[in-house]
């Protein structure tokens, strides 16, 4: 929250409501996707990707930071109803840090990548929401679990298909939103 002038009431409230949205998505039951039959998907990280695509890099990262802060203060908003300081000592703490930087990369990349907006959004969500998130999450897991990096990576690969589906969903949802609210 640097620079008072740059962060007006409108941005502040949008950041707060997106942080609330990420939290609310952590509490809804998993969605069932028509694409991958019967695969339940926690929608929380979808909210993180959407924050980057819709709010942009800076505000998206602030929304995720605010979400993590509220979780740290004790709100049970992490998917599965977890909250409090404990989550930052768990094995997936690196992924939480990855969210913060990943969302910034998503917001920065999406308008700069070539191609149709929905393809650019998908690519940005893959690079930022999966690439950057894993870049911090996997070494974090290896560090906390005292594991060689390769083994930690092997343990994380199971989440990759679900994350790819989420990146696609985020890109599609952001496109539908852009159509519903042109010139937002």
């Amino acid at each position, binding site marked *: 929250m*640097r620079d008072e002038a740059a962060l007006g009431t409108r941005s*502040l409230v949008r950041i707060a409501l997106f942080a609330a949205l990420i939290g609310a998505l952590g509490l*809804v039951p998993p969605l069932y996707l028509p694409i991958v039959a019967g695969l339940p998907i926690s929608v929380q990280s979808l909210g993180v990707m959407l924050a980057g695509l819709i709010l942009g890099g800076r505000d998206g990262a602030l929304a995720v930071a605010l979400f993590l802060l509220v979780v740290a203060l*004790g709100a049970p908003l992490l998917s599965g109803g977890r909250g409090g300081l404990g989550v930052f000592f768990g094995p997936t703490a690196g992924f939480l840090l990855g969210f913060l930087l990943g969302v910034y990369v998503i917001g920065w990349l999406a308008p700069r990548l070539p191609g149709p907006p929905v393809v650019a959004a998908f690519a940005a969500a893959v690079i930022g929401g999966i690439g950057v998130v894993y870049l911090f999450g996997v070494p974090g897991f290896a560090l906390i679990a005292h594991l060689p990096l390769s083994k930690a990576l092997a343990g994380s690969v199971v989440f990759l298909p679900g994350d790819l589906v989420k990146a696609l969903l985020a890109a599609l949802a952001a496109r539908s939103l852009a159509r519903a609210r042109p010139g937002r």
Partner: protein
Amino acid sequence: MMSSYLPGHSPLHRLPAGAKLLALAGLSLLLLPADSALLLAGALLAVLLAYAALGRRALARLALLRPLGPVLLLMVLLQAWAGDWSRAAVGAGFAVALRILLMVLLADLVTLSTPMQDMMDALERVLRPFERFGVAPRKLALAVALVVRFVPVLLSAWRAREEAWRARSTRRPALALVPGFLAQTLRLADHVADALDARGFGRPADRPSPSDKRTMP
């Protein structure tokens, strides 16, 4: 109120938030080099006793840690695999898993016994020296309050959309719900921002001075 805080009057509850946070930080540093599974299991037992002393509702919170189980198990298995399934490797795996569980339980103990507002106050005290660099504790406090207030609002908005979907379709709710929900969230954000500005929140000073006749843009 949506919070992990458990009201109570235990000695742990009476400790100031700052002291508990510092103790947590200290313990996490102390535990970092601990490698003995026996020592860690003993510490875990002590922490579990502290939960038991806080009462049944604190013990019930342990059920929330269930999602951690598979991850910790995976961790032990990966560790054993990395060490070619030797006894020492399995032991090291258990030590790591125990240490993580211990830290998570200790941190949750702080959350359990400290009201959210006390945490916020402790945070504001830490941030106060940074005020001169443009960090605004007042805005941060408002943002936190907005998140806490709007999670239930957004949740019920989402549920309403799910119900409307179920009324019209036999299929399970899916992606089609997301864009409308997002649009609704952004509309809501704009309304709240207008309402805040109408009440003079966007003013540069904390309190509007009589000489400040500037209207909101």
